[in-house]
């Protein structure tokens, strides 16, 4: 069965510092991996995805994520955090090798960036 773990409920970082939001996954085959962000009273917005190829994926708003197959991780990173990055972040996974399976989301990590 597919699963996603986001081990931190909340991440606190000062503006201008680098940020990391952690995600580990479990699938039987190869994964498609996604990060979405949710601002208050709004739906989820797509940030970036890993399909295949380069392990470092670049996305919207200066975010990037590194796929690590041996550690089954897909951590979200940004070199310099902004206060406006404060939001709820979701990691999601889908098994490439099982057609038609649903996208599975983690429980989310709240990022708080202080000025």
């Amino acid at each position: 069965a597919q699963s996603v773990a986001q081990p931190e409920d909340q991440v606190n970082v000062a503006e201008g510092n680098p940020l990391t939001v952690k995600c580990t996954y479990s699938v039987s085959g190869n994964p498609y991996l996604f990060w979405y962000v949710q601002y208050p009273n709004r739906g989820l917005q797509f940030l970036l995805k890993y399909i295949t190829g380069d392990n470092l994926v670049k996305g919207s708003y200066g975010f990037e994520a590194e796929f690590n197959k041996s550690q089954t991780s897909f951590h979200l990173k940004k070199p310099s955090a902004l206060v406006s990055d404060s939001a709820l972040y979701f990691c999601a996974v889908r098994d490439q090798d099982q057609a038609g399976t649903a996208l599975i989301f983690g429980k989310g990590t709240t990022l708080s960036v202080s000025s």
Partner: protein
Amino acid sequence: EAGVAQSPRYKIIEKRQSVAFWCNPISGHATLYWYQQILGQGPKLLIQFQNNGVVDDSQLPKDRFSAERLKGVDSTLKIQPAKLEDSAVYLCASTSEWDTSYNEQFFGPGTRLTVL
């Protein structure tokens, strides 16, 4: 391009009442999803449509939940009768053409349901 539209944004009902949510996906998007997001959890897929056909409804509590997408465009999700544990945000999402599993999904703002 207009985004995914949902209504109402908020709904408060008593348990055992019925409620319906409406979603209009991005124009031309063949695949439509309904998710349930309980507070403190990630979204969970309830049902996936491809045009007007159901692709996956394995997680839909069919004794009380129903959904339709009659003309392959907008969709309605209904709960009848509602239970306290149905309190959640109901998200609608869509993606272009056929679901290739790696397409990003576009989400609406959600409907926040409170069951008293």
